[in-house]
């Protein structure tokens, strides 16, 4: 009986939390399916209207920006390329850095690791001028490479992989050595498959991090061709229902990534195979 009561209370609390998070999104979604005129006269809506297809297709394909050079669809593409690039490169660089630091007899490895870790205190916003100057000297302004490279090495991801590698028993490496692996095949055949869940977690974190970038792409791009979704959110001048529709769509890519990698992601965070 007490078990029943406590479970009811738990579910009650969880439901309230769920409502607090979901209701605003639902209201924006429901409102985005009405015409702007209707919202302007009647306020935010809780029930679906009948302008869903009209509004969303208009937003996706409408030329916008200051010079009307870009569509929302292109912004999604840009954001996707940028976020995937950042996530992929950070996973690769941090996997390899951690491998080097843990498995090779690097002198001062711990010191080097803390140096890397200290870069967490210097986020992109703080080094934005020097980063911009470097990128412009490399002629990478208005390119995807320019958007991606300066944020494609992650200290926190290196930290995660390093801690994980340290928890792998030495015997595994020794057994593998006797089985004839070399440093490259140990990395490919052992560390990567073993850190699969970790990779998924880091990939999601870095994808969302990349997707949410605002200041850096704003500075790095002068051509509207490289606008990202987050920049679009700020500069999307349209009717109110168009903006709502755009907000709803902007949430979709990270959600898709999380849905696909969810299982691995949860395992990666709790790391108890």
């Amino acid at each position, binding site marked *: 009986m007490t078990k029943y009561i406590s479970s009811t209370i738990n579910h009650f609390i969880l439901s309230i939390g769920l409502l607090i998070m979901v209701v605003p999104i639902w209201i924006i979604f429901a409102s985005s399916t009405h015409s702007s005129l209707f919202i302007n006269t009647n306020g935010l809506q809780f029930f679906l209207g009948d302008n869903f297809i009209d509004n969303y297709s208009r937003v996706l394909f409408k030329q916008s920006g200051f010079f009307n050079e870009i569509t929302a669809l292109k912004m999604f593409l840009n954001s996707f390329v940028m976020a995937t690039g950042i996530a992929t490169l950070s996973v690769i660089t941090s996997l390899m850095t951690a491998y080097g630091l843990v498995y090779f007899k690097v002198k001062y490895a711990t010191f080097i690791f803390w140096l890397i870790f200290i870069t967490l205190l210097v986020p992109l916003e703080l080094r934005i001028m020097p980063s911009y100057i470097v990128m412009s000297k490399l002629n990478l302004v208005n390119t995807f490479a320019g958007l991606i490279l300066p944020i494609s090495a992650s200290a926190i991801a290196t930290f995660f992989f390093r801690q994980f590698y340290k928890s792998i028993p030495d*015997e*595994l490496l020794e*057994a593998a*050595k*006797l089985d004839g692996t070399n440093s490259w095949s140990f990395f490919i*055949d052992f560390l990567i498959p*073993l850190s699969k869940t970790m990779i998924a977690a880091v990939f999601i974190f870095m994808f969302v991090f990349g997707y949410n970038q605002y200041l850096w792409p704003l500075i790095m791009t002068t051509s509207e061709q490289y606008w990202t979704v987050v920049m679009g959110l700020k500069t999307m001048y349209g009717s109110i229902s168009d903006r709502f529709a755009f907000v709803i769509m902007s949430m979709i890519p990270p959600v898709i990534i999380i849905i696909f990698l969810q299982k691995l992601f949860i395992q990666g965070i709790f790391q108890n*195979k």
Partner: protein
Amino acid sequence: MSFLELQNITKIYPNGTKAVNETSLNIDNGEFVVFVGPSGCGKSTLLRMIAGLEDITNGEISLDGNVINNIDPSERDVAMVFQNYALYPHMSVFNNMAYGLKNRGISKEEINNKVNDVAKLLEIDQLLTRKPSMLSGGQRQRVAMGRAIVRNPKIFLFDEPLSNLDAKLRNQMRLEIKRLQRQMGVTSIFVTHDQTEAMTLGDRIVVINNGVVEQVGTPKEIYSKPNTKFVAEFIGSPQMNLFNCKIENGIAHIADMRINLNNSANIDDASLGIRPDDILISDNGQHTCVANLVEYLGSDMIIYSKIGDQEFSCKLSSKINLNAGDTFKFDISNTLVHLFDNTNGSRV
């Protein structure tokens, strides 16, 4: 020339600890040798140096006629079974066994045949598709052995592989290891701190203490003629009784007890050792003691008693009726005692 030769092997760790000191040893092809000693005595270090997992500070190891000091572990053609098995957690049992073969560029078909043969031999052929996390301790142990066997190496190295198993399974695996080794005839080195394992498995036993080899010999030699006090205490269960005594003209003085050793030795500080089951209890024995404690073990029992202030134990058949508090009479035959000089611990 022996199959495996260790010459003056020394290992000093960077922090200055001397793990192995000037150890020399010859092992013949097909032999089953057991390294035994208390934990931290350097037996695992020695094994790992043979495997190539530890650098050798000094000395030379040669295998099958070639010096292997600077040869990579993967090219030494040795296989090792680790204490915690070290199975590859992300690979199926089949792949665990096949991995080493793949790295040697053996064809898929041959790998298939070999793995299946070994799996049948070890009765794990039903488990080939499972991951190690889905196996029991005993099954993991078998897979670890399978991984070593399938490579058909020159030497098997076992690093306390049975210590994570429960007692029953340990006995069973012990027999199986012995049987497999006989069947395949591969030279094997087995490291353990358990003297029962050492006695039952080894063709020869190497007793190691503090990085030094105390004695090398067959189980029988080691048991019946221990070279040093350490070996005498370490091998045999229950432990050998060692009495501190003074020997004058071949007569040992233990408290007020006298034992005629039938020689003319004179040692001020000696140890007289006698195994608990070599103490002969009879009604017309020369010496008398009180049984302080009696441990009943089924077919046997162990009696704990004291001569002066030195404790000792005797092992005898539990058919004899003796209870704690009773007095008993016994003899110590001078043919069954072991004498050690306490100044250096060596046998007299």
